[in-house]
């Protein structure tokens, strides 16, 4: 039995440690493979590091092995859950006792039957573990991803905000007026080539071309921060921050009873700092809502300066209008004429049985290009992915 497994020397700063090579490596590799199939981004360098760590720590304490693997295989907090589930399932299946050392003989027997000691044999059980781990970890993530922001616990909402921070939107693009000089393109860049040709006696040796470049469209996000939107506006501003970090020319306004421009506050890099500055500046968090009046202010004061004709305007509100719906309809029509696309985002529309019956919505909807229900990380991700086509 012992003769079958080759002895392996593992180098550590404390000297060279002999390890029961075949079984040990086979199990390490199998565990790494399970992690990989479960959706963790595991590479061979990590697996090797894990093997070294195991050689160092021994198998006496299951908790230490678990912690070591966590330090090595996990690279972001969200993956912890998946790793821990995989670890527990994998080592539970190998025997009920908590010490790994006690399980080694059993594994050895398995392997004797299989023949070659250090080729990990495909195990029918592994697939089971992968499926279980995937289900366990991804369901937690997917549930959170799809959950309505209003239903999250503080802990969950921190995770959801982290997901929004990690968002990489596909920005809407438009053709820039100027062309750029490149090594290839549509037209020769004659001016630049002539200028450079002066140095070579009028001979244009280095050909350059003009290429029309694309630039991100300006995006304007106008967010309702009145009482009925309280549970959503925080996430929407996180979303705005993600848009901003992606490099889009972005203008952000919030309104309750009046419109406030918060573009500058949001320029600070960290999302938390930006939100803090915003809340310091905006006094009417959770007051009443006058959407029509706010859109009028946007049209009057900001359209020519900040919105510009090429912009995609995202208006986030549930349409609970306290003011005059006529005014809202009129101002929405004006706004639509002065931008590229006007999108209305309603978090409440994601609820089952939703009907656009609020006064504000009925007045505004005829004048928007698209009506989007967005109340979760998943829906905002979907929106961010679709922006390019807008």
């Amino acid at each position, binding site marked *: 039995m012992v003769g079958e497994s080759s002895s392996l020397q593992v180098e*550590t*700063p*404390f000297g060279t440690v002999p390890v029961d090579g075949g079984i040990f490596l086979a199990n390490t590799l199998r565990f790494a493979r399970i992690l990989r199939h479960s959706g963790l*981004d595991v*590479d061979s*360098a*990590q697996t090797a*590091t894990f093997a*070294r*760590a195991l050689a*160092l*720590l021994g198998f006496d304490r299951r*908790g*230490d092995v*678990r*912690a*070591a693997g*966590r*330090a*090595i295989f*996990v*690279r*972001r*907090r969200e993956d*912890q859950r998946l790793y821990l589930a995989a670890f527990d399932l994998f080592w539970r299946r190998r025997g009920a006792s908590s010490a790994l050392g006690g399980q080694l003989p059993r594994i050895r027997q398995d392997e004797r039957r299989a023949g070659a000691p250090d080729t990990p044999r495909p195990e029918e059980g592994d697939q089971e573990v992968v499926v279980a781990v995937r289900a366990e970890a991804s369901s937690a993530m997917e549930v959170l991803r799809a959950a309505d922001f209003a239903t999250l616990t*503080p*802990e969950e*909402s921190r995770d959801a905000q*982290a997901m929004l*921070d*990690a968002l990489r939107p596909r920005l809407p693009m438009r053709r820039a007026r100027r062309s750029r000089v490149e090594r290839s393109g549509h037209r020769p860049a004659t001016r630049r080539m002539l200028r450079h040709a002066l140095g070579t006696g009028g001979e244009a040796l280095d050909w350059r071309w003009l290429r029309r470049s694309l630039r991100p469209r300006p995006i304007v996000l106008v967010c309702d921060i009145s009482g009925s939107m309280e549970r959503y506006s925080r996430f929407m501003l996180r979303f705005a921050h993600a848009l901003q*970090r992606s490099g889009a020319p972005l203008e952000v306004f919030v309104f309750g009873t009046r419109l406030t421009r918060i573009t500058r506050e949001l320029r600070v*890099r*960290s*999302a*938390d700092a930006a*939100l*803090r500055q915003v*809340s*310091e500046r905006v006094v009417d968090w959770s007051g009443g809502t006058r959407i029509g009046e706010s859109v009028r202010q946007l049209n009057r004061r900001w359209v020519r300066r900040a919105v510009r004709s090429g912009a995609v305007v995202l208006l986030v509100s549930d349409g609970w209008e306290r003011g005059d719906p006529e005014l809202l309809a009129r101002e929405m029509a004006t706004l639509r004429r002065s931008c590229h696309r006007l999108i209305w985002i309603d978090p409440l529309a994601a609820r089952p049985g939703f009907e656009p019956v609020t006064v504000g919505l009925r007045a505004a909807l005829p004048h928007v290009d698209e009506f989007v229900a967005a109340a979760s990380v998943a829906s905002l991700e979907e929106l961010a992915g679709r922006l390019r086509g807008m």
Partner: protein
Amino acid sequence: MAHPADIDALQSAFAAQGYVADRDLATAIFLSLALGRPLLLEGEAGVGKTEVARTLSSVLGAQLIRLQCYEGLDINTAVYEWDYPRQMLEIRLLEARGEARTAATRDIFSEEFLIRRPLLQALESRAAEAPVLLIDEVDRADEEFEAFLLELLSDFAVSVPEIGTIRAERPPRVILTSNRTREVHDALKRRCLYHWIDYPNAARELAILHSRLPAVPDALAREIVGFIQRLRGADLTKSPGVAETLDWAAALLALGANHLDERQVEQTLGVLLKYQEDVSAMRSGGARTILAESRVV
């Protein structure tokens, strides 16, 4: 001091320095030492990420070299810079002596005129024990700088064009921290071991409090920890970290409190909560509820 021989030794060495590390964190630190890999610590502000590096340096008896990252941090402030004013003076001097022509540029670009910033200091250290290099809040630095760090952490060498490559004799022990204002690049993470430091549970927080502020009576310490543990469950913009717990305990101690009462809690909320909304939410009844709940337990 030599390396702690195992996780237990490391844990107790840390405890002796007043840092109560849980077993998982101790394992991560131990492996980082044993395998010679940088350790990336993430977690909310005030959970003791920076303190790990500080404690590690005193446990090992090594020098602590700290690089605070910020947006716009560049090689000049992180690695090295030429002392331009001194170089200019040197040139003037050479001119005055009429040696400017004979003096080659290498005279001016010599180590004498090199200003060593933290990263270069860490590489050049000749101390018996390799220094602990703390790269604090790496998420604040730009991505270009991260790319540079990646290079540095794989070779532990930098090249100064005018001088040549400077390589560490003994690679420094590297601890990186991140508050996660953005995701640190995957390639950088790949070089590191990773540990997410959570808020401590009640037992550990109590141990931390006792270890750091032995003057706080046990009954008060328990009440403080109970209150804070509940407070972290409330809907706050920023939950208090361990640093805030310690500050608050010190504040209550200074006020001569023997147990938590509502008035004192509300008076000292500013030590715990750093956002006006949070403070006002707690003043308008939140604190009373939490206090009542934490008493029940």
